[in-house]
């Protein structure tokens, strides 16, 4: 009989001891990491859970109530909510434009490899020339995506001044990068069989794109757009903290001027806005897909 595995008690013990040692090592590493972070981040949990700070938090919460429901504040909150909606809507729209105009170049199987190009010589200047637009589309999308919305907002506030327009640009640019990546992945995952049968009937590449690829990817595109819009309405609500309009701007003012009652009103409006957006998005998803 061939001995495939050492099952003597001594060997078992050795394995067990080794894994315990490994686990201990990982555990001590994690604990060390946590302690290092605890000191670095200046955390005072004891202070947080002390009676004093508890009372302070209680005082703050008491100051929040009752929410300021006077007509002026409500009007302002409503205006802010509409503005936030507008920012998220136009930002998402701009992102879709950016993503759709670049994504055809940013997916490998449409631009230089895969079924569409298998008849062409693998190596050669033509393939290299095709790779250039791919890289030229892909790398800007990556840069757009890597920089967070809030940083974009700061940059655009510098470029176009305070206000909602900076927020629209920030959302549009960042989400454009995100959607570009997501769309590109969807395009690279398309089912090849319809494409192959279209090719067999003699369709050219443009026809293959419109009759073989677009119908496949459209539902997923819509679903991603709606998902990003949901995310964007949350982000648009806080973009104002760096000066890019919407409810965030009102929140910024309310916090800075210690107008806690107004703050609560705005927070309630954020909650309503986000909830409504979620419902609307799931309704549209059911209807459109």
């Amino acid at each position, binding site marked *: 009989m061939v001995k495939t595995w050492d099952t003597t008690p001594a060997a078992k013990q050795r394995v067990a001891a080794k894994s315990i040692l490994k686990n201990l090592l990982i555990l001590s590493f994690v604990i060390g990491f*946590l302690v290092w972070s605890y000191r670095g*981040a200046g955390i005072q949990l004891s202070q947080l859970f002390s009676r004093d700070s508890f009372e302070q*938090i209680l005082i*703050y919460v008491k100051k929040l109530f009752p929410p300021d429901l006077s007509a002026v504040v409500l009007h302002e909150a409503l205006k802010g909510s509409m503005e936030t909606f*507008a920012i998220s809507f136009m930002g998402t729209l701009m992102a879709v434009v950016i993503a759709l105009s670049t994504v055809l170049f940013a997916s490998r199987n449409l631009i230089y490899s895969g079924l569409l190009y298998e008849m062409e010589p693998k190596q050669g200047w033509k393939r290299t020339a095709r790779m250039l637009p791919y890289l030229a589309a892909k790398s800007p999308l990556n840069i757009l995506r890597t920089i967070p919305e809030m940083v974009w907002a*700061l940059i655009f506030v510098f*470029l176009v001044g305070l206000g909602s*327009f900076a927020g629209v640009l920030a959302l549009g640019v960042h989400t454009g990068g995100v959607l570009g990546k997501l769309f590109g992945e969807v395009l690279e995952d398309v089912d090849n069989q319809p494409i192959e049968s279209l090719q067999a009937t003699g369709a050219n590449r443009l026809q293959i794109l419109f009759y073989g690829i677009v119908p496949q990817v459209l539902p997923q595109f819509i679903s991603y757009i709606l998902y990003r819009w949901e995310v964007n309405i949350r982000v648009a609500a806080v973009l104002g903290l760096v000066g890019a309009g919407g409810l965030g701007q009102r929140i910024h003012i309310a916090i800075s001027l210690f107008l806690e009652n107004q703050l609560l009103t705005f927070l309630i409006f954020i909650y309503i806005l986000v909830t409504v957006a979620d419902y609307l998005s799931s309704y549209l998803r059911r209807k459109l897909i």
Partner: protein
Amino acid sequence: MNQPAQSLTRQSHRSLFPYLFTALFLFAIIDSWQRAGIDPKVLFETKGRESLWKFLAGMFPPDLSWNFLSLMLRPTLETIQISLWGTVIAVMIGFPLGLLGTNNLIVRGILNEAELQGAPLRRSLRYAIYLSARGILSLFRCIPEFVWAFMFVRAVGLGPFPGVLAIGVAYGGMLGKVYSEIFEGVNYRPLEALQSLGANKLQIFFYGWFPQALPNFASYTLYRWECAVRASAILGLVGAGGLGQQIEISMRMFNFNEVLTILIILFLMVAAVDYLSAKVRALL
């Protein structure tokens, strides 16, 4: 006979939707365009062009002097520290509240069906606990972490600590919700087997419930940590420590080459964290 008639009515109902949708969509575009003050020519007018040029030209070359890089080392580490403890606090908030907010652990399900059979008072008490846990979680979740950070800056002062608290509270709400969803999705068979063996509730929880949920827990918590790194990097924009604070300072001082350096650091940091987290996830 019934089938075609039904599909016909549905079709006629559906046929109105595209028109309505298109009309509302166009209206939303026009209204939002005005409301958001969109003005593309601002970017192309002399002033916009000049500031764009100033920004782009100012960014290059990035400030890679040893002096500045060593100054940035601390905020970078601070960002990671904030994200780490923010996630720890989020777990500390999310786990207990998620447990209390799990319907089949608190109100229904095999753990309680014998106990709460003929006790409406106890049942409604349990239900109240369940609802309030859910309510707190949704409250924590629906206020954005930026607003939390801003409020905590007011409460505990500038620095990394408010960032930790903001991430802890906001992500605690998200983690709690996902935890309770994971708990509700466990397989019932092992639990019933344990119960029929005579295990008590605690034993059922630790031997039947928890082992099933643990892998999903760990992987979702890791994912949230990744998000926390991104978030803590920019929470500093409202004064909550980390790299964000440096970005804001550099933007305000128009030192765009420093901004570029910080963005590069941010990129490298996020990439490193993603890599590390993928490695850990592969171990799970």
